[in-house]
Structures are given as structure tokens and as C-alpha cells.
């Protein structure tokens, strides 16, 4: 029973930790499925985390904060789009630049806005996303097995968590059941086919990059206004890169992306929960647990996903005329 309680708690933590990864991972999925690689997920999340917290702090409304976060992330998306679609620049370099830009600008703006050393004031009340309780969560809590699963694991997260997980079937549906999805997948595989079929490659790719911006925006806002109550510098702490790894692990597929993010979330939750694991005399130092998600990513990339074949036109600008 105690094991079960611990399990529920670890899984609960997994969900919270997986949520920003999942949003960012799906963001990357849209972008990369359309042929635009994006290592700037991290920067976009960070930018959004700051602006959502800043606006929420100033206006007291978390919804305005969310909008602002999405807006800020969209601006970086637009920059990425202009660099890699319009000017057919190197997508990796553009991503690196965006990460630097976000890391510097957030603190710079925060400092000249709030004078709190690159931090926003703490959010409270309407400035934060509060957890949502499912109906009967309280009542059911006592029920064995079902109780904790329903009232602790499923209920009691912020609305953005549910948004993130709903995005998975939605993304699947958009990708495989709609015209837009067909075109999006096609433009990442062979933009010339899309072009000669009379559809704008540039338009599609910008649309994908914009969706990526929106999702990264939500991810950042989740970090700063739902998980936390304000922005501190570098608060994304490499989650954008983990999301990217999850995306590759998932071979650019929505349901797999969810499982990959949950796996990474679980790894992190376990690392947080069990530090310095004692395995019959051999103590696994905390540093190993700390690095475990990264080590496992490499192991997974090396061994289990086999060759993850990215969208065929990914990373290459669409150039008709040399």
C-alpha cells in the first residue's frame, strides 16, 4: 500500500514535469513535421515564461499573462520563420541565436521593468493558474486504488496540464485527418510536391512555426504561472532540449511524443524522489541520478529508437533557384 501511495505521488509529479516537455515537444513536432528544425524551443519557452509572469504580475490576470506569453513566443517564432523560411538561413543557427536572445532579453527586460534582479514579482490570486478539482475528488479520495488515482493523479492539476494532454489527440487528428495536416506532413517531406500541387510552401511553414510558437508560449506560461508563481532567470533549465530529445525518441509522432515526455518526466520524478540510491552497499551518487535522464536519452537514441528518420526535407530551406 505504501508502495502504491508512493507510486501515485511519483506519477503525479511525472505529470507535472511532463507537461512543459509535452507542450514543447508537440510544438517542435508541428515545426519539424513541416520541415523547420527548431532548437529554439528553450528560448521561446523562456521568453513566454517571462512575459506571462510579467503581465500576470502587472495586470493580476493570468489569462492576460498567458496571452502575453504566447505573443512573446510568437514573435520569436516569427524571427525563426523569417530567418529560416524567408531568408532560407541555417535553422540550427537561428535556433541557437534565439536561445541566446531569450536568455539575455528576459533578464534585461525584467531588470529594467521590475528591478528585482531579472525576476518578476511573485504572483498570487488571479495571477496564477489554480489547480482544477474534478467533481467528487474529495469524496472519492478514500476509495482504494481508484480514489488516489482519481483524486490525486487525475484531478488537481492546472488547466494547462489538461490542455497539454488534450493536445495529443488533437494533434494526431489534425495531422492525420485534416487537409492542413496532410499538407503539413507533405511540406516536411517534399516541399516541391506541395508547391507544384498549388499550395504555398512558405504559408504552410509559417503556419507550422506559428503553431509551434503558440505551444511553446503555453509551455512557458505553464512553468511561470501554473507550476511556479513568477519568473526567475533561466527557469526553463534545459527543458526545451529534453523536449527535442523526446521528439526524436518519438520519431515525430504525437502519441509517441506523449509517452516519451511521460518517460522523461518519470525519470526526472524518480531522480527527484530517490537521490543517492543505495543498491546493497553500492551507493549511486546523486549526480548519477541527476544525469540519468540525459544518459538515458543517449542510450535510447543509441539503442532503441534505431535510426530516427526525420522528415525528409527537415532542416533544409526550400530553394527553388540556386
Amino acid at each position, binding site marked *: 500500500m505504501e508502495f502504491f501511495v508512493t507510486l501515485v505521488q511519483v506519477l503525479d509529479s511525472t505529470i507535472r514535469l511532463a507537461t512543459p516537455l509535452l507542450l514543447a515537444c508537440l510544438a517542435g513536432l508541428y515545426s519539424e513535421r513541416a520541415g523547420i528544425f527548431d532548437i529554439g524551443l528553450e528560448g521561446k519557452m523562456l521568453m513566454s515564461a517571462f512575459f506571462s509572469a510579467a503581465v500576470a504580475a502587472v495586470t493580476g490576470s493570468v489569462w492576460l499573462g498567458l496571452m502575453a506569453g504566447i505573443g512573446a513566443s510568437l514573435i520569436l517564432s516569427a524571427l525563426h520563420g523569417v530567418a529560416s523560411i524567408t531568408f532560407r538561413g541555417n535553422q540550427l543557427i537561428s535556433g541557437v541565436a534565439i536561445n541566446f536572445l531569450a536568455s539575455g532579453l528576459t533578464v534585461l527586460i525584467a531588470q529594467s521593468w521590475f528591478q528585482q534582479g531579472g525576476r518578476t514579482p511573485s504572483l498570487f490570486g488571479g495571477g496564477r493558474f489554480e489547480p482544477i478539482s474534478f467533481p467528487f475528488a474529495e469524496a472519492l479520495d478514500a476509495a482504494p486504488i481508484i480514489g488516489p488515482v482519481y483524486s490525486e493523479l487525475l484531478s488537481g492539476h492546472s488547466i494547462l496540464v489538461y490542455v497539454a494532454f488534450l493536445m495529443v489527440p488533437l494533434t494526431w487528428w489534425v495531422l492525420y485527418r*485534416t487537409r492542413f495536416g496532410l*499538407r503539413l*506532413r507533405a511540406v516536411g517531406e*517534399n516541399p516541391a*510536391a*506541395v508547391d507544384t500541387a*498549388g499550395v*504555398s510552401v512558405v504559408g504552410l511553414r509559417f503556419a507550422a512555426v506559428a503553431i509551434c510558437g503558440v505551444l511553446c508560449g503555453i509551455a512557458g506560461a505553464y512553468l511561470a504561472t501554473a507550476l511556479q508563481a513568477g519568473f526567475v532567470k533561466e527557469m526553463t533549465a534545459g527543458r526545451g532540449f529534453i523536449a527535442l530529445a523526446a521528439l526524436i525518441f518519438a520519431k515525430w509522432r504525437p502519441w509517441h511524443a506523449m509517452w516519451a515526455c511521460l518517460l522523461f518526466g518519470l525519470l526526472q520524478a524518480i531522480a527527484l524522489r530517490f537521490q543517492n540510491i543505495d543498491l546493497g552497499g553500492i551507493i549511486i551518487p546523486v549526480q548519477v541520478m541527476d544525469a540519468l535522464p540525459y544518459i538515458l536519452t543517449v542510450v535510447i537514441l543509441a539503442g532503441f529508437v534505431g535510426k530516427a528518420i526525420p522528415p525528409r526535407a527537415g532542416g533544409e530551406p526550400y530553394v527553388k533557384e540556386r
Partner: protein
Amino acid sequence: MTVPAIELKGISKAFGPVQANKDISISVAPGTIHGIIGENGAGKSTLMSILYGFYKADKGEIWINGTKTDIPDSQAAIASGIGMVFQHFKLVENFTVLENIVLGAEDGGMLAPSLAKARKELKALEEEYELFVDPDKRIDEIGVGRQQRVEILKALYRKAEILILDEPTGVLTPSEADQLFRILHRLREEGKTIILITHKLREIMEATDTVSVMRRGQMTATVKTAETSPQELAELMVGRKVLLQVDKVPAQPGKPILEIENLRVVDEAGVERVKGIDLTVRAGEIVGIAGVAGNGQSELLEVLGGMRPGQGTIRLNGTPLALSGHGSDGQARRAQGIAHVPEDRQREGLIMDFHAWENVAFGYHRDPAYKRGLFMDNAALRADTERKIEKFDVRPPNAWLTAKNFSGGNQQKIVVAREIERNPDLLLVGQPTRGVDIGAIEFIHKQIVALRDQGKAILLVSVELEEIFSLSDRIAVMFDGHIMGERLPHETDEKELGLLMAGVAGEAA
């Protein structure tokens, strides 16, 4: 006189410093098949891509059915009833046939109804034009011939009244090509207008009503097919008299140089491409391998050239060669005495961003002749390059130019010079004249024959039957990874080879 279906007026287009189309005007009557011929790089594809809205012209007007029409993108072209089958197909490889057909022509935001509708219409179209393909197969699961049908169906599905086909027969067997022309005639009877790009004079003579000739970005003539001859067209294309045949003395085959026994090749995807072939090439002979692209010829050359592993036995001058692992890579092959003119000079034979002199060492860069101490002896290399440039008449004769700045023919001359001048025991030649103008073709053919006459063995792979006929001393036909048969050129004809290429076995080889 009827209003022309298409009228292009003063079309010009430059790609950076390259003037691909210069002030071109052309008019095509409705319900006719109009041929366009021209050497490689003459600008045929560019012109048609402009008509289809793929490129934008720098200057000029497009008139469709008597109205001036602006075609900024393919959307507009499709709306004007134009469909195009590109030289390099524009299909999404991991989509199904059906998905490729509806892509861009969906009705409504949901996919399911579009697909259902397309499936029905496709059936009708298939039956009407005998263009059968399985709508649920993925593109990468079907052959190139089928892929072309998909492209045609794509155009018909979009209700094209004007159909442009850019070199459609390059990937077809002769009988498939015949079927294509039957379909084109049927379409013409229905009143559709067809533009057919090809550089095969025979096809022009058989299939078209009128023909336009392009040379170096300009339109040199438009004539009625019935009123011209292949010889005249060839002259119009090149601008001078050309020999359509290579002069050569009969071969004097010597001892076997290359012996292949039960060679098998499996590609990266696990598909067996070469399915146990046996072949011998002797000193002083050219063995030509005919076949439709994608039947294992490329893989055969690549194994011999050390570009991919295989299984079976290969002997060179009686010595077995490794087929995988150590001693089987390109460096080893060169050391063993095999030179290789690869099929794709731009992706394989040259580094497009290297200077000409760097490319002359490509593959031979570990040759001690190019080494001085720890470093490469660039001076020696450049001197060597100057020599080769002069001997092979590479133009412009500038060793410092990067490869991409040479024309296709001159790029090929650099590759051929590099490989032939190595004086190999065995020369592998893949598509030696693809994308090369007639003048350069003559020159390259002569060099290959000269090497043969020095008693070297040559294995030639080409999809151009004409080239196979004019160069080979012996012809082997490949189909689906097998050698269907061997023939001597003077004892066979295009028809028989065509049957073999289509997999119809003749009497035992």
C-alpha cells in the same frame, strides 16, 4: 485560325548569372501534341516550369486560350487548366498514391471525404485511360513507371486541359513508352493540348504534330513534324552537323578482366537489388548494360566501384576482390585498378564546391604523387590538372574555377579525364553522357573507345539505348536485379532489347 491554347511572348529567365531562357515566344494550337527538343541545359524545363508557375519569368507574357494570364504560382496554373509532369517527379514518397493525388486538391478541411471522392474519380480515370495504380500503395513501394502514372493522374484529377510532360520516357521501357503515347493520343482526341519535352528525335517524329527546337536558352525554330527530318532537327539543336553514330573498329576481346559470379546486393532498406548475376568483361571490349533505371544496374556499378557492400564473387585479373569490409571501399578499388565514372557527377563524381584542381585528385588524393611530406603537393596537383584540362579540352581552361561553375559537359569531362588518365584495367562508366551536350557526347564516346582500343575492359551502364548501341561490343540487359540476356549489338534491335528490359525473357542467353 483557332485561338492558340498557349501563347508565350518574350519569356526571359535568369538564374543568377545563367540566362536560362532568352526572349522566347511560342504558340501551341489546341488539341495538338507539341514537342520541344533541345540539348541538355537548353532551358526546356525552365520554360515549362514558368508556364506552370513553378518559376517566375523575369520578363514576358503568358496567354492561355487567348487571354493574357498571370501565373505567379502553380495554383494559378492549375486554375488555368494546366497540368505538368516534371522531369523529376514531385511526389511525397511516404504518402500513398491516393494522398499524393488529393494533396492540394482537397475539398474541404476534412480529409476523409476528399479521399473517398478521389478514390471514386480515380477509378473512373484509370479505366478511361488504362492508367492502373493501386491507390493505397505508398509511392516508395511502386516503380518509377507507376509513379509517372500517378503524376499524370494527378494532372487529370485536377482537370488539366493542357498537359506538359517533361522527358517522360527516360524512365520507361520502350513498350511502356508506347503505351504512354497511346494515352497521349487519346487525350489529344479529347481535345486536350499536350506539350512533350524530350531529346529523343524518334519520339518527336512518332508522336508530335509540331515541334520547337531550343538551343542555349533560345527558341531556334518551330516546324511541323511532318515537314522535317531527324537530321534537320539535330542540326537545329546543336547548330552544326553532327554524327549520330560513333566510329569504331570491331572489338578484339582478350582475356577476362572482370568476372562476376552470383553477385547479390541488398540495399540499406533491406531490399535485394541485384539478385545473383554472372557477367564477364574481357580486355579490349565494352560491355553495355541496358535497362530501365532502377533495375539494379546502379547497385551493380556501386558494388564494383566500392560504394556499397555485396555478396558473391568478383575477380579482377583472376584475383578475388573483397565485397565488404576492408579492401572493398573506393580507395581499395582504385588501388586494385578499377576506375569509375559515376552515374551522378554532381552528387558523387565531383565536389561541387572544390576547385577543378582539387577535384582532379578526388578519390586519388592519397596518391603518393600528390604528396609532399605531411602535406598534399598542391603545386604538382595543379600542374597535373592543367595537363588534363588541355588534353580533354575542358572549357574554360581554368584550374581554379569551382566545379559548380563549369557547365555539365565540362564537369563530365573533368571526371572522365580523371578516371581515364589513370589508365585502369577496368573502367566503370555510368550514364556517361547524361546531361551532356551532343558535342561533348561525341568527345567522351571517342575517349571511351580509345581506352578500349588500348586493351582495357569497360563496363558501361546507360539508360539510353542509342548510347548502348553505339558504344557496346556486347549488351547485357538487366531487369529486376537479373540479367535477362546478353546480345551482340548487330544481332539485335531496340525491340528485342525493349522486351528484355520489360522482363520478357527471350531465348536463353
